[in-house]
Each structure stands twice: as C-alpha cells, then as structure tokens.
C-alpha cells in the first residue's frame, strides 16, 4: 500500500478552505514569509478517507479483538462516552473563558468539580487536581508535590524509593523531577521486600512509590507496615493508581495511608486508548498536601457558583495550561454516574474473577512465578516453553495469528520471560475460554512443533519486522 505522499497529484485538494483575497501575503515584509514550499500531499477528500480507513483495518483493537494487555486495562469503553464528550456546549468551550468570564462556563467547571469530588470518595483522598494529562504526568506532579512539601518543611531529601515491580514510568518520573532513584527488590511472594526497604529508607528518603496491586498482579499486604515506616522518616507515600480497576469499593489508597495517588482515567474510567493516548492522570492528595496542589483549582462558592481558586498557599504552580484533558474527564464522569456505587464494585469483582479464572486454567501449562490469588491481572512466565526454544515473544506472535491481541510481554522486568494477562471485566466467559484454548494449544505446540510457533505470525499483512535495522538506520519520514 502506497503512503499518502505517493498518492499525491499536483493540483488536488481535499477540503477547500475558501479563497483569500489576492496579495494578502504582501501585507507582511518578505523577510517574515516562508521561502520553501510546505511539503504536504495533494489528495482528494475520498483519497484521504479511503487511505486512512484502509489503514485502520490493519489494526487490532478492543472493538475488533480480545486485547488482554496486562497493566494497560484494555476494557470495553461504552459508546455513550463518545456522545457526551462531544456535546457542543463542551466541545466548543474556550478554556480562556474560565479566566475572563466564569459564568459562561459553569457547566464545564461543574463537571470538573464533581468529577474531583467523586474521585476523592473513590480513592479516600482529601483533594484532587485534574490538571495532569496522563498517568506518568500525574506521577511527575506527585513527585513535584513531594519536593514542595519537603522544601516548605525545611527537609533535606535526596532520593525516592521505587520497588522493582513498579511501572517503568515511576523511576523515570522521579528522576525527571530531580530525585535519585533507589530500587527495592520484591520478596518470594511477590510483595515489597520489607527488610531491604528498612535498610534503604532513611532521613534522606523523600517518598516511596508503590503500585497496589503491584505489577505482579498481587495485593501488597505489607502496605500498612510500609506507611508506618515512611511516617517515621517523614517520607511521603505515593500510590500508582494504574491498577485501581482491581480494588474499587474494596480498598482506598487514602485509608491505607497514602499521601498522593494518580489515576489513569483512560484505564479504570473508560476512555479508549486511541493508539497510545490521550489519557488523563488526575492526582489526589491527603490532608497534609492539600495546600500544595496545582492552581487554578476549581472551587464552589457558598452560593453554589463554580469558580477558579488560585488561593493555594504552597502551590507547585501550573502542571497544565488549563484543567487537564477535559474531554477525558467527561467520559469518566459519564461512566461513573452510569455505574454508580454498585456498578464500580462489580467492575472490580468481575475483573478479578476473570483474571483468576484464566490463571487457574493456564497454571498447568505455563509457569506461574507467584502462585497465589491474583487481582485483575495474572503474570506467567514462558520459562517452560523456553526449554523448547519458544519465547514469550513467539507466544505473543502465535496469538496474533489466532485473532487475539497478545498480552504484555517482558514486563514486569522481575519476571523472566513474563506474560502478563489482564482480561478486564468486560470479557465474557466464552471469549476467555477461546483464549485459554489457544494458549493451551500453543503450549502443547511448543513441545511438539516449536518451529511452527517461531514462524508466526503468518495471517497478518506483514511478518516480524527487522527492529535492529529500524534503530540502526532510522528512516523516520516519507521523504
């Protein structure tokens, strides 16, 4: 298939924006004008539509395939969200209006306020900021909050503790915000290693970042001991909420002693992943960090009017230009109000049921490094299959041929040849059974005919790419 530039024919146009008066560019000094032509393709509207429609058909997606991507929560996202997020009153609202004419955007401010309130209840936190644009951006916000807290309290803190089983963004965010990163291993049960933690935590510890349930799919039972230890050194407790899908209504970060939590609205609260984004990463804080959140915050006056609040004594400043990814908040708000209390609890229960069902069924065939009840995702290892020369990557590719998007592989890094399966609550037993059957079939084939697996995929328009060549001789554009 040709790329869009190869389809270009001089003189064609897709959408005509209109005809400007002649000599408009003579209004500006020639030194301010571009000398080179822009290099955009010249194609008709139909060519554009057909080109990108055909490209879309080369994708696997939740609406077309089972997509059990661990730690990414690829659940089905109700279609109503797509309707409410583009209502004209929302989509045409200029964000600067909040600065110059609050009464013109009361509806939008109300959504932000109410979403924050609901998220406070869901997480048990005192205050929320909607500004962070994504989970990792929320992490960075959290670290900046820590830094500001310690600065105001005159603390001299230099490092942040991150367990081995954390998301890769945790250490990256801590480092990007100017801290050293100290890693703590996991114990034999997949939890944080408390004795190692005790050795590494000291007066220079600014905070600890925990993912609960962890990326090994298990609940961190030791969390109260960790938070007691952190208090001793005035270190702050950070909760990576990427896995909140597993515990809604069962446990809340705030009740477990966390000071900061980020939420991936696009995971737990149902925004489609869009090929990698946009998401949204609201951050909640405990009482002791309430005076540090980004401004402007949205507040409600006694008269019931929604207003911008710049009065946050120790604010870290602006994390976003405005209020974060508002369109994503609209989807989360729609989803939460539709499901309500009972619905959200059911989400977690069914997500955990599905994951444990898969874990039990596949246990005889794949090595299970931590054999205990899992939460919303189950982490296996392809260790048994590696003996026959079949790696996690090969299993992933074989699944593509069978019509499944593969699970996450080689993550978490602590599990050798990891295969991380997260079915989510929206998958039916029938579809899960088909997946299980194919996983078992692949395990059997690995023993009898490993080459058949190593040569997959064969049903896709392209086979395995030469990734080394892509990195060594980068070709990053069409021309």
């Amino acid at each position: 298939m040709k790329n869009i530039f190869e389809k270009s024919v001089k003189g064609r146009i897709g959408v005509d924006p209109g005809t400007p008066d002649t000599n408009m560019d003579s209004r500006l000094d020639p030194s301010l004008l571009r000398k080179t032509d822009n290099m955009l393709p010249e194609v008709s509207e139909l060519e554009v539509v057909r080109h990108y429609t055909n490209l879309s058909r080369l994708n696997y997606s939740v609406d077309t395939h089972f997509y059990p991507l661990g730690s990414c929560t690829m659940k089905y996202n109700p279609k109503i969200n797509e309707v409410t997020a583009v209502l004209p009153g929302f989509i045409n609202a200029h964000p600067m209006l909040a600065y110059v004419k609050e009464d013109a955007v009361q509806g939008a401010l109300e959504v932000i306020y109410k979403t924050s309130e609901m998220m406070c209840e869901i997480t048990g936190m005192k205050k929320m900021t909607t500004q962070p644009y994504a989970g990792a951006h929320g992490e960075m916000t959290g670290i900046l909050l820590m830094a500001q807290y310690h600065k105001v309290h005159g603390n001299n803190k230099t490092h942040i503790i991150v367990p081995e089983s954390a998301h890769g963004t945790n250490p990256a965010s801590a480092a990007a915000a100017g801290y050293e990163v100290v890693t703590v291993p996991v114990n034999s049960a997949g939890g944080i290693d408390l004795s190692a933690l005790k050795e590494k935590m000291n007066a220079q510890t600014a905070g600890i970042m925990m993912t609960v349930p962890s990326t090994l799919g298990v609940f961190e039972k030791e969390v109260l001991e960790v938070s007691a230890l952190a208090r001793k050194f005035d270190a702050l407790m950070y909760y990576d909420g990427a896995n909140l899908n597993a515990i809604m209504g069962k446990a809340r970060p705030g009740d477990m002693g966390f000071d900061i939590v980020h939420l991936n609205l696009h995971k737990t609260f149902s925004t489609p992943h869009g090929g990698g984004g946009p998401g949204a990463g609201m951050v909640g804080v405990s009482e002791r960090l309430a005076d540090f959140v980004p401004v402007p915050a949205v507040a409600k006056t006694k008269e019931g009017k929604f207003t911008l609040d710049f009065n946050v004594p120790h604010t870290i400043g602006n994390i976003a230009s405005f209020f974060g990814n508002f369109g994503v908040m609209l989807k989360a708000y729609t989803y939460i109000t539709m499901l309500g209390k009972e619905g959200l609890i059911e989400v977690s229960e069914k997500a955990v049921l599905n994951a444990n069902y898969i874990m039990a069924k596949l246990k005889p065939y794949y090595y299970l490094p931590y054999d205990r009840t899992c939460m919303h995702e189950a982490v296996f290892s392809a260790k048994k299959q590696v003996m026959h020369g079949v790696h996690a990557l090969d299993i992933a590719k074989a699944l593509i041929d069978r019509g499944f998007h593969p699970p996450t592989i080689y993550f978490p890094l602590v599990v050798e040849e990891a295969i991380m399966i997260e079915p989510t609550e929206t998958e039916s037993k029938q579809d899960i059974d088909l997946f299980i059957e194919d996983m078992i079939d692949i395990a059997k084939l690995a023993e009898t005919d490993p080459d058949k697996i190593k040569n997959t995929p064969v049903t896709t328009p392209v086979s395995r790419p030469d990734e080394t060549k892509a990195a060594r001789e980068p070709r990053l554009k069409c021309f």
Partner: protein
Amino acid sequence: MAGFTPHTESEIKEMLQAAGAPSIESLFSDITPELRAKSFNLPKGITEYEALNEMQELAAKNMSFTASFLGGGYYDHFIPAAVDTISSRAEFYTAYTPYQPEASQGTLRAVFEYQSMISGITGMELSNASLYDGGTAIYEAVNMAFRGSRKKKVIIDGGVNPLHIKMLKTHAKNIGVEFIEAPAENGRTDLKALAAMIDTDTAAVVAQNPNFYGFVNDYTSVFAQAAENGAASILSFYPVSLGILKTPAEMGADIAVAEGQSLGQPLSFGGPYLGIMAVNKKFMRKIPGRIVGETTDKEGRTVYVLTLQAREQHIKREKATSNICSNQALCALRAVVFLSLMGKEGFKKLALINLERAEYLKTKLSEISGIEVLTGPTFNEFSVKLKKEAQVFFKEMSAKGFIAGLPASVFYPQDKNTIIMNATEKKTVTQIDLFIKAVKECV
C-alpha cells in the same frame, strides 16, 4: 444500572469453581479488614438515557455567543467532517500503543505520515509522535537542551505564552535551571537585546512566533547568536501560520515545538490537545516520546515499528530521556487527516484567509477613534489599546453577545487597557461588521 459485564450467575459459579474459590469475596482475602475501604459513598447508577440527559443539562449551562474573538494560543478553527469520521474509526480509537507491529500497522503508518507532515510544514529534519500539549512540548524541549549541555541559563522571550512559561517553571523547578525572561514591552521584544543576553553559559533560548500579543518576528539573528554560543534554539510556532510564515528551520531553530490544537482538535475546554515537537538530526536519540520508523520484514515488505526505544521509560527507567508513556496518538491522527485534507495549497490558503480576516478586523478597528491597534506585523491575532480598562470593555461587549478577545491584564497586570483579539477563517465579514458596530458602542 449497567456494569458492562456479561457474567451470568451460572457462569460465575463455574468460574469460581475452576479458580478453586468459594465466592468472589474470597478472591479479595489479601485485602485484610484493616486495609478495607472506610467509605464508598457514591450515588446509585443510572441508565444510559439518564446519563445523556444529565450531560446535556451540564453542557447547556455553558453559554454560547454571537461571535468570539478570543484566542490566546487556542483557536476556533473549522474542523472538516472527515477528521471526525476517521478518528472515530474504532480500529484507531480503541487500539493501544502499537507495541505489536504486526497487529498495529494502521496506527504505525498513520503516525509515520504524521511525522512526515510535521517535517513537511516546519522544514525540520524529524519529529516525534506527539506530546501532551504545547506547554509540555516546551518543557520537554528545554529539558532536552538542558540535560545535554551542563549549562545553567535558559532565556525566555517575554512573548511566549504565559501559561506555557508557568508550566515550564513548575516542571523544571528541581533540576537547577536558571530562567531569565526578556521583557516584552507592549508585546514587542527587543530582539537585539534578547540576542545580547545569550552567552556561553546559556543552555537554550525559547521564543514564540507569532508571540502571545500576536506579533510576528524573525528570530534568525537571535538563533544565530545562540548557535555561536552553543545554546539550543527553541521556537514555539502556531501550526496554521506556517502556511505562509517563515519556518522554524528557515530561522535556524534546533527544536520546533507547538500547540497542535489548531490542526483539527476542538477547543474542548483545555484538552485533549496535541504537543508537537520537531528537531534537527543531532537530537534524534534524545527526543522524548514515541517515534515510528520504517523497516522491512523477512519477505522484504515495508513495515513500520516503534523505534529508538532505548530512550524510553519502559527500557531505561530512571535514565530515560523523559517519563512520557501514553501520548496523544489519536490527536496526532486528527492532525494528519487535517493536514492531508488541506494539502499543500489548502494549507497555504487557510493561512492567507486567517491573515485576511484579521487584517480586515484590524483595519475596521483602526478607523474607530479611541482605539489604537498596536503597530507591527501580525498573523491572525493582534493587540488593541483602549481608552478604558480592557476588562470593562470586555464585560460590556459580552453583554451584547460578543467575546471581544483576551484582556492582556489577565496575565500582564501592567497592560490594563490592552485586549488581544483574534479572527480565524470562521469569522465572516458579516460577523466582523456586527462586532465593529458593537465595539463603537462600547469603546
């Protein structure tokens, strides 16, 4: 109440039995009583129809206006219908980051074409797949220049979007950058003075074109001074303006960044937007975020993959060039469809029409006594000085149904009487004439 979960009672029983669990609750036994939620006080669920009604009511609480001339870095451009049609294809919008290239060629090729078009409008050598927004792009650009250089100073032109400057300062608070701002008097920076501020201890200089007050500049000499001192030149540009204005590459920028909202993204009260970044080759292995590259498969067919991943957080953890993980791929898709539809000629015409409408508005305003249009070259936004406070004028105009622009005092308290006005291709001559009539009554 809808849970969107398909399980029947008998299936639940069967699944629990397979898992060896007596009940669903038993699966949560790791969450011991002392770890349990102390409260979960949310309302009962509602039906889809009820939810739609509630959202419609909330949306209706936002006001609409006869015409708005409010810009300030975020613009009301027309979005061709095909942009929504393509971006709402479920195969694009319900897919994840394309880690499995064989199952994601659609997203990967669209991103590759996006990178090409960003190079195609900026003249820069290469681009990443997208950052969160324009402010993030500036922060990541400064971070990239700062990390590599061991120099402390970053000089910011006072005409850079004040919200982006605030974001930059917040994000860079703990990494030891020393920010120096070059003042913009009445919206205009003295470029010679700006260039003179750059010395060998300067890591980067950040400018914006057109600037926040709407003025168009040529930063060539400033960037030459930066190059001489080994400082990186960062230019924040307004994508639509590149239909006619001098490109970042032509000015000698090392890093070009932008708020991509004007390329097919609705205003949506602040997001999702699109952070654009394009760079010179020397930054290829430092640029943050996702990058798609072209390669081949075993049969020699062309394949697209995420590449140069050794920079990224999922491999490098704390040594990654940035912590960006999820990005704005769907917004980038909207941008690539938008740019394809415009094409070479349409993109230029779009820019010229924007210039034309703003020039018309400017001319009409300058004929009104009591109004001083600040002189200088502009694109589709410009600043106007009034005889009264801009906030007062704004209020009077909004009572007549118009949003008259952005009172500069919101961000620059000293500029009490200045209002920044914008006119895109969506403002018709009729609307502008009606606006002018109202201005005459309020001035």
